[in-house]
């Protein structure tokens, strides 16, 4: 009996997990530079806008959707932060790995398959997103913006937002020849999305004809979801709709990335 049970105990780490571990170890060596942008900046935003603009808002309207302005924008900054993490991790680092430095090509000469390299990367980005979102949830808790047990889902919402952006952007970067279009993406997609996804004021502040445009932005769904979780408000069906949008983006991104990564590394 014993002989039979020991034959297969030599379980090796699955291959995508080795790629995850590589990213984790790389981060352990180089994390210092990235802490400011992922933790400090959102806090500065929150402090400056929440306290400064919040002061003005309190004078004019009092509350926004029943919240103080600081509380109102705190969850949306969790969504924008995790979006920005997804963007930052997925364009230049991936193009460097497939073209400039070619570290993914080096990885492709090991037992890893292109799928392992892709999934390991996304799993690592998701890990960072989760940790960042946990920190961030605690911080906005200190600011008093958490009003429901649903706030425990915020780290998962943050991770989902990151993946919704990271997966398609990794796929896109894996097929890019230069970074010329990346800057364009930032200028004409990411920055407007950051500003106009009902991030800093409610959808009702937009004229009627612009609302469908805002609702078309992926970040809008992340912001709405984060807000609903923090305050415990909103219809469940609507939240599921928002989540489904983000899941769909991540899923399409992964499917696309499997193709582009394979083509880039094995052609």
């Amino acid at each position, binding site marked *: 009996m014993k002989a039979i049970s020991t034959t297969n105990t030599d379980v*090796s*780490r699955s*291959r995508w997990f*080795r*790629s995850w*571990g*590589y990213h984790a*170890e*790389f981060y352990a*060596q*180089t994390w210092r530079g990235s802490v400011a942008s992922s933790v400090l900046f959102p806090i500065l935003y929150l402090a400056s806008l929440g306290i400064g603009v919040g002061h003005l808002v309190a004078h004019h309207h009092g509350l926004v959707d029943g919240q103080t302005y600081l509380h109102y924008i705190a969850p949306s900054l969790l969504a924008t932060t995790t979006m920005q993490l997804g963007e930052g991790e997925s364009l230049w680092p991936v193009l460097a790995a497939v073209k400039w*430095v*070619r*570290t993914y*090509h*080096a*990885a*492709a*000469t*090991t*037992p*890893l*398959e292109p799928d392992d390299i892709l999934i390991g990367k996304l799993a690592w980005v998701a890990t960072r997103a989760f940790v960042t979102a946990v920190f961030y949830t605690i911080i906005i808790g200190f600011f008093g913006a958490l009003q429901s047990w649903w706030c425990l889902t915020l780290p998962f919402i943050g991770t989902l937002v990151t993946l919704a952006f990271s997966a398609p952007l990794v796929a896109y970067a894996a097929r890019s020849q230069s970074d010329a279009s990346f800057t364009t993406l930032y200028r004409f997609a990411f920055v407007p999305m950051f500003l106009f996804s009902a991030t800093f004021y409610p959808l009702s502040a937009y004229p009627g004809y612009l609302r469908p445009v805002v609702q078309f932005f992926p970040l809008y769904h992340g912001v709405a979801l984060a807000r609903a979780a923090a305050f415990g408000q909103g219809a469940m069906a609507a939240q599921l709709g928002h989540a489904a949008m983000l899941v769909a983006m991540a899923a399409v991104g992964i499917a696309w990335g499997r193709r582009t990564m394979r083509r880039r*590394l*094995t*052609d």
Partner: protein
Amino acid sequence: MIDSHILEAHHLVKRFGDFEAVRGIDIAIDRGESFGFLGPNGAGKTSTMRMISAVSQPSDGTISIFGLDPRTDGPEIRSRLGVVPQEDSLELELSVRHNLEMFGRYFDLPRRIVRERATELLEFTQLTERANDKVDNLSGGMKRRLTIARGLMNRPEILILDEPTTGLDPQARHLPWDRLYRLKREGVTLIITTHYMDEAEQLCDRLVVMDQGSIVAEGAPRSLIERFSTREVVELRFMTDDHEEYFERLSPFAERVEVLPDRILLYVNNGDDTLRDVHAAQITPSSALVRRSSLEDVFLNLTGRSLTE
């Protein structure tokens, strides 16, 4: 399967769109052999290497490595191969040692083993003193040695090297060569691409000459030279813009004459005798050199072009 080739490829083809980079080549490599692909840039060497390292799939033909099929057993094959790609592809921000250890983890080697091997290989490639330096600060030769060390982390049975010393100073090439020679003595099968004929002559037991995606000759370096060139070569330079004008006058003195942009090559058996005859015929080159034939001459003879142009 015992005693069969460690690597075999039949009718290997690689197409990129309409362009055929590799045009139906056959190779068979024995265990412990050191095998070379010699050819100029664009000959299809790198495409071939990527296929036989079980990374890229052939457009046509079959490959067997360790008796396994890369289409179905890629990860298993790659776990027993070491690859030194043309570009170093190292993590520039990390230390020399971290580059090795992290790469070793791709093979799922335990941390202790990875650490031991990294130490061993740093010694082997004479990088021990630089172990904690950032890779960015290394010289080209050191980076190359580190890439070779990285390719050895999994103790591969076959080490595949794509242009191992291209871009290095002549003196920086000797250490890699020496180390590869040691590996060969330890029984590692080496597969090397190069466009340096001296590298091919130093390292390869046997090689194929590639040109435009096809194999144009195969054999040991010495036997290729015997088969496709004469024993000696006389190189003559004249004060002229066009060496072609000397072709007719020099033809009678040699078995074969090649005109290059800056010189004329006479293929002969005894260079000193030929040079004396040329001088006797009142032909006065501005400089003259007698040397032994090399693989460069083989390539020139087979393709009409120079290896390094």
